[in-house]
């Protein structure tokens, strides 16, 4: 759909939509534009935070930079600039990400150091994300293909339901798309397959190993997308009359063995909970990036959460919507924010995702709509 749309144009449209939704924001007050992209060349090159700021018509006085932590790019854009706000260096920032995986296939142009192999620093399988997912199945035999497929089916169903209820659309920006047959308008995600069934999932190939468990059906796709979010200090939000949707409480990133990168969110979440002085039971809503179903299940099992727990990915996730690497972090936050508004009984939520080469990232958020009475009523 975006084959003839530039990656930088995508993120610029996301930024323009963001600013249009927040007309109270004086553009010259924006202190930073941090845009993530995994492959920072071509239409994602040239310090994309700065180029996007210029292309979006922000004043030339507004600085910008490019940021990369593979899948957690946008998340890192948020945590880095959020830290800047906490430190007092920024008042107001735009953080987001973009990945045009059509123009920039995963790992394109990368030149891994031969020491990775010669010194066995990283298993060769670690560079293939599907293999790392198969390795999670290996490590945790209780995580069966059936559980993965079931989780994937639920993701598709939840996205379809969220779309039907109009919960996804408010956060989307329509994008004009060019094709051989002229201009069209992209208004919804292209990836979801609401017609998915368990039977259908069972028949899919396992491309990463013969008789494996990871299929295109229980993995996120290779997609094109862009996201942008506005972050502000509490004082400035008040001054400008901005209504915060979430408040950042803590965040953490953590490393794991690269060849089993999907479990990364486990240590990062423990770390972030620890920093916040919270326990997993304090978390009322989870937005977990679904790089692979098995990778989410490993997280749920670790924390003793049921596969079908309604607190997890209420609107579905990347298995249905897709995972345009560096842009996904902010999509998780958008969905969590929308759920916060619907769930005043929830005080804390978290967004978490695994990262290629063995990392996890977690951000814990507080719900500004939290209401003790609502919480009691729920009980």
């Amino acid at each position, binding site marked *: 759909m975006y084959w003839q749309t530039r990656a930088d*144009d995508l993120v*610029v*449209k996301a930024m*323009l939509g963001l600013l249009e939704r927040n007309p109270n924001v004086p553009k010259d007050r924006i202190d930073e534009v941090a845009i993530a992209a995994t492959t920072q060349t071509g239409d994602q090159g040239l310090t994309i935070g700065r180029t996007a700021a210029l*292309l*979006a*018509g922000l004043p030339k006085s507004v600085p910008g930079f490019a940021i990369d932590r593979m899948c957690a790019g946008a998340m890192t854009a948020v945590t880095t600039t959020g830290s800047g706000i906490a430190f007092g260096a920024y008042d107001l920032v735009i953080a987001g990400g973009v990945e045009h995986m059509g123009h920039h296939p995963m790992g394109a142009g990368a030149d891994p150091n031969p020491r990775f192999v010669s010194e066995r620093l990283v298993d060769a399988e670690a560079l293939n994300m599907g293999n790392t997912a198969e390795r999670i199945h290996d490590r945790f035999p209780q995580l069966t293909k059936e559980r993965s497929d079931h989780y994937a089916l639920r993701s598709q169903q939840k996205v379809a339901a969220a779309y039907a209820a109009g919960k996804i659309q408010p956060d989307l*920006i*329509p*994008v*004009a798309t*060019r*094709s*051989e*047959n*002229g*201009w*069209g*308008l992209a*208004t919804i995600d292209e990836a979801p397959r609401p017609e998915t069934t368990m039977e259908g999932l069972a028949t899919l190939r396992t491309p990463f190993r013969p008789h494996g468990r990871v299929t295109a059906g229980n993995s996120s796709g290779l997609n094109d997308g862009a996201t942008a979010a506005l972050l502000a200090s509490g004082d400035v939000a008040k001054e400008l009359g901005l209504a915060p949707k979430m408040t950042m409480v803590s965040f953490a990133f953590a490393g794991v063995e690269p060849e089993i990168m999907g479990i990364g969110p486990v240590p990062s979440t423990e770390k972030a909970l620890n920093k916040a002085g919270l326990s997993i039971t304090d978390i009322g809503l989870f937005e977990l990036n679904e790089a692979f179903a098995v990778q989410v299940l490993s997280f749920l099992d670790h924390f003793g959460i049921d596969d079908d727990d309604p607190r997890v990915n209420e609107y579905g996730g990347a298995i249905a919507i897709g995972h345009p690497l560096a842009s996904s972090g902010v999509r998780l936050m958008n969905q969590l924010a929308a759920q916060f508004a619907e769930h005043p009984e929830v005080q804390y939520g978290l967004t978490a995702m695994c990262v290629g080469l063995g990392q996890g990232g977690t951000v814990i958020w507080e719900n500004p709509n939290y209401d003790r009475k609502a919480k009691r009523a729920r009980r």
Partner: protein
Amino acid sequence: MTNTVPTTYADIDFSELLAFSADEVVTHSYVRDVKLASGKTLALVTLDNGRDHTRPNTLGPLTLVEYGETMDALKNRAAAGEIDAVAVTGKPFILAAGADLSKVGDVSSRAMALQMAQLGHYTLSKLGETGVPSFAFINGLALGGGVEITLAADYRTIDASAPAVAFPEVFLGIIPGWGGAYLLPNLIGIENALNVIISNPLKNNRTLKANEAFELGIADAIFSPANFLEESLLWADGVLGGSITVKRPNVPGKIERMVKWDAAIGIARKTLESRIGTVAKSPYAALELLRAAKSGTKEEGFAREDEALADLVAGDQFRASIYAFDLVQKRAKRPAGAPDKKIAKPVTKVGVIGAGLMASQFALLFVRRLQVPVVITDLDQGRVDKGLDYIRGEIATLLSKGRISPDESNKLNALITGTTNKADFADADWVIEAVFEELSVKQDVFADVEQYISETAVLATNTSSLSVEQIASKLKHPERVVGFHFFNPVAVMPLIEVVNTPQTDEATLSTAMVTAAKLRKNAVITRDTPGFVVNRILAKLLGEAMHAVDTGTPFEVVNTALAPFGLPMTSFELLELVGLKVGAHVLDTHHAAFPDRFFESENLHKLAEHGKIFDRDAKGKIKGFDKTAVAIVAGGTTPMTGEQILRRVEDGLADEIHRMLEDDVVHAAEDIDLCLILGAGWPFQMGGATPYLDRVGASERVFGDTFHHPRVTGVA
């Protein structure tokens, strides 16, 4: 104009026209349905010829038919309730650059020209007739028919970065004949329409920027390029839903129609007559269409456009204009006989000999365009300072007008220096002189500077009348000398005659051509013959004019005798513009070179002493001929009639141009015409000179042939 009854376009058989256009580059009409936020469905038509932006969408007969059929299908879908709106937009950067000129310029009969007009009206109108609201999203360049596509829509939006919106038809000798002449004044008012359809094309084909088109009311909304299409669709949704009301303050009301309309037409007619005379047909045809657009139905308006367009497309002036347009668009960019650009020497520093007005203008042009150090020199520091003051003053003016930034101003000021020591020219790669027009002076100046400069530095002379070869004759390295003849005013006139002497080497010639292009001028290579091209032709013309006066023809008769040419000014106006002294000198030098064909004029010297020919009012407007001037030239005993003068000049020009081509002054008649169009402002409708001389029979009379085979003329 013939009185016409509206035609039922659907009844016309266009098959001959379509067969004629079989090889057209078709701009396709692609349709995709767009779901709007409200849930309504808009059928979005994209015009795309499948080429990149260097080959804009154009509208030929096959394109129009496909577009019409697309609209017919959408009309059916609208009737079936499948779509709620229709919109048209273009491929990236371009909506449409108008009619396919290669097709329009080739029609073989007036009947076919008429059909071309009718087919446009027939098909473009369909956008507004689908039964659902129609939109045009002007996403980029829109010229002529490209604008007319949008005028058929109910609503229009424009991309703020659209580079140009314009009706260039009158510039090319035709009129907006696919609805523009009727629809535009009824959308934006008569005065605005007069500017867009008549004045702008005649001002060097000026175009509208997007915001101007929006302010005039051609577009109802303007959006940023970053999300133009998205915003346009959202806006269209708002219009459909009633949340957006479109206001059009410039749509003419009753008072405008009753009072202002005819008055505006009257004023425009007078302005036209005084500015360009009455020879060019298209501006007057456009004026008449705009006048008539005040009342009556759209169908009547379209029928008038059909007839007017057919007349003009089949006529001589349009063919000559297309010929001229091709010259300035194509031949000017690929000059005949230019050596390989790769052998051009780099120009990293420029020396200008002389600090007078002409030299200072050169210095300013070189420093602005080449962005390299420019050093000017003259006999003493006082003259150098005066030249520098002029240049810095001009730079300051550019800055104050916002044409250049403060940084650019500082840069230019730092690049420009003056000296009285020619040793400062040592590292210049290009030295141009603009000193007194006398052979020995120029020879000495070049010989002097040659002591200081490198052996390969190019020496360029701006002489208009001397032999470049002779100027170079005293040099150790005459092969590095080239003529580089500008036209006044230097900053404005687009032509440079690059004079190639028998000694000039290829690298020097190439350097001159590349440098001219960097100065954003069009260069034509000429041989080193007296007057090169433009001055020789003008000397012929002015010599004949003065000869007629000298032999007793009244100024008045001579002044109007060449009116059928439609030149931008009369001979005497031209003489006053270039200066009577200069004019007399030009006639003298040409008479000296070709005594049997070029007249000198003692009277012109006397008029130069007196200072003027015309009697002018305080504003410089001509009231009549100056009484003393009339007395000075009195005494001739064999006056001619206007017809005799016209015939003499036509034949004289045909003869002279024929001789120039025989003598290979330039390679082709096209180059003569290009020089006259760019260097002397000769009109497109003449095609420069040679299409005109062919069509009036002068070529046949003088040398028994024509310059062009076939002649550049209209069709029956």
